[in-house]
């Protein structure tokens, strides 16, 4: 018992939790934007992979780190556009299109990587983002190492929580996004375009998702591996429900997941001899399922989610 408390009280543990949460924050924000507009984006897993690959490769080819981030976002936006075209004006099944985008984006990323680097045995490394050293803040006891010695992309993720919340709740655009996911005819009756609004939101949300992938290859690690996204996209889809489509709760959900994950790694070293390691790996996922069981029953899905809208159709 005291072991557990000891783990929770180290700054190092909280720093790890925030680090693990970062890609999830990007992913959940992106997913909740799309869903608020009425479009489920199951392309997320592939868009993560595409962002991870494209950002890393841009830097490897000589772009700056921030250039790489931009390239990742553009790659995400491009796959988001594919999903948006298929689901909004064409009105195809959002599930099928999303899974298709995931398969397509993942394979294309692997293919590009293999074509560019046909015969390397160990993945080439780049000079990744380094933890920031902010005067005063980083030197604070406990809080400094826990919060302020992160890489810039973590701060960017936190900033996006504020930006997305501001856009959704404090601007006419956010009003329109929330309305189009609830009742698209409200948007049309006010003279706005359902199609443009939905497509734009899906493209922007997908760009955010791709930043989650970019964090993996440009901050958490410094290279691209196959299967490195490893289900993080799917976790974001679940966390979106957990967050009831709110940016603030999305942050809390991502942090909880990060904390569970950081916790199991540490617990493993404590009692790893007795319990098989896979049990620990399972823990964050089991806990997210448990959390969802509690929350999702009351979940208030955007009413028009999954429903295509065609003008002038009854």
């Amino acid at each position, binding site marked *: 018992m005291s072991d557990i408390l000891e783990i929770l009280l180290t700054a190092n543990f909280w720093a790890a939790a925030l680090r693990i949460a970062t890609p999830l924050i990007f992913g959940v924000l992106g997913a909740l934007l799309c869903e608020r507009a009425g479009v489920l984006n199951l392309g997320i897993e592939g868009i993560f992979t595409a962002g991870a690959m494209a950002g890393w490769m841009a830097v490897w080819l000589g772009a700056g780190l921030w250039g790489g981030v931009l390239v990742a976002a553009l790659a995400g936006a491009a796959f988001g556009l594919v999903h948006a075209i298929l689901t909004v004006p064409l009105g195809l099944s959002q599930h099928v299109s999303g899974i298709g985008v995931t398969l397509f984006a993942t394979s294309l990323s692997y293919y590009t990587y293999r074509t560019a680097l046909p015969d390397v045995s160990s993945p080439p490394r780049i000079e990744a983002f380094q933890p920031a050293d902010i005067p005063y803040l980083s030197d604070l006891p406990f809080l400094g190492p826990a919060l302020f010695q992160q890489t810039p992309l973590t701060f960017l993720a936190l900033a996006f929580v504020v930006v997305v919340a501001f856009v959704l709740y*404090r*601007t*006419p*655009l956010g*009003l*329109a996004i*929330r*309305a189009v*996911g*609830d*009742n698209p*005819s*409200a*948007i*049309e*009756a*006010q*003279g*706005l375009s359902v199609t443009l609004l939905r497509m734009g939101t899906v493209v922007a949300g997908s760009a955010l998702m791709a930043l989650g992938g970019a964090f993996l290859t440009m901050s958490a690690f410094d290279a691209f591996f196959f299967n490195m996204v490893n289900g993080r996209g799917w976790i974001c889809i679940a966390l979106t429900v957990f967050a009831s489509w709110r940016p603030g709760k999305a942050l809390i959900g991502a942090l909880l997941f990060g904390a569970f994950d950081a916790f199991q790694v540490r617990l493993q070293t404590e009692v790893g001899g007795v319990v098989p390691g896979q049990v620990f790996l399972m823990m964050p996922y089991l806990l997210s399922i448990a959390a969802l069981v509690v929350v999702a029953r009351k979940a*208030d899905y*955007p*009413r028009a989610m999954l429903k295509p809208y065609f*003008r*002038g159709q009854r």
Partner: protein
Amino acid sequence: MTTGPGEQPVVLALSGITKRFGALMANEGVDLELRRGEIVALLGENGAGKTTLMNILFGHYVADEGTVSVAGADGRLQPMEPGSPGAALRSGIGMVHQHFTLAENLTAFENIVLGTVPLIRPGLAGRNARARLAELMRRSGLEVDLDIRVSRLSVGEQQRVEILKALYRDARVLVLDEPTAVLTPQESDTLFATLKSLAAQGIAIVFISHKLAEVLAASDRVAVLRLGRKVADLPTAECDRQKLAELMVGHAVTPSRREPKAPGAALLTLDGVTAGEGRDSIRDVGFTLHEGEILGIAGVSGNGQATLARLLSGLLPAERGNLFLRDKPVHAHDAGDMIRSGIARIPEDRHRDGVVGAMTVAENLVIEEIRGRRYQRFGFLDFAAIAARAREAIAAYDIRCPGGGAVARLLSGGNIQKIVLARTLDAGPVVVLAAQPSRGLDIGATGDVHRRLLAARARGAGVILISEDLDELFALSDRIAVIHRGHLSAPRPSEELDRASVGLMMAGHHTESEAA
């Protein structure tokens, strides 16, 4: 100097509007002019093309032929860009759709200001939005709490939000599609008072309706649509009920009359029955229904009618009291048993309880008899027999649909009701339970329902007619009882009652014991 509406300037003109959906002519060469400050009723049966015409005006549909012109700032008529709700809004046209176009997860305020300022900017609305809305609410009398979610507003309040939405954009023309379909009679009166005051402020108003009484009471002019064509356009002062009904239906309408007939033996008896919970429960209800009799149960919705209907359908047990069918006590509450004992049910919410929306017309027609021999062969469904039954019912009941294979959900309310009638009445029921059977139906469909109920009576069935419509109750019922707060008055022959006293009893003003 004041001028009559006839001398007011024209603010909107539709000319030669034609719209086809495939082979169907929804509108055919329709002309309509609208003057400042007048209230025009657009009258027509369901499917006459009223909604289509107004959707063209508002830019939801593009007309195949014809133009829409609106008066500009200088008062001259200019053609409006077709197919653009944005253009219609900018020209000062506001529309309250039959199915409200509100985002229910937003507040009333957010719904009203949505799309009125550029999307990319901080702040939800212009600086004076609140003040302007407060002023609008004061002037129009449309009060509503602006800061709660629309999902928590009543239907009447949501409609007020819709009207405010139009007024906030300075609408000079206001279109309302069947605005009273969802309102209580009191709410309708308030709405028409509001519309009158808006018209007095110079707004031109079009409201769509198929109810003659409100058209006569609330409009200055009536335009009648029939099968997509405008068949009349005349001042309301020159109209009466009979004339409008004939214009709308296209032939003389004779109200259904009941032939005098002595009632037969007792069929169904309720004795001191208490059931249900809360506001809609029934308390100590007793009556006897006889063969060949229509017993009207008058009352404002929500006074126990739903519970009574569920009880008689076998969906709810009686807490106290007894139920007899031809002197035999009925104990079990089992819907299947009730159907087999010959109780036919015409449910109040025909879309939800009358049909399975996702199933076909044919399937819905045979669904209550599916366990019988008639539609089976070797234990499997006999599709040939089912299709034959569908063809027969579609012809006999004039169900307008592409065929027995059409999905029921897509049919209009009147045609769904005809499916219910064919299914229940053709089985030769002993007792017919008809809950609000003509609610929301147009004159033609209402007439069909009434004729069928009278035919069941003539055949010797007993009919329980639950209704809010006094015309219907007095035209059909042999006896009438009034239900109020779960208590049912003793049924009295309808000849001995008058409309005013039944209306008062429905409102709970005095019960029979006090009146006696």
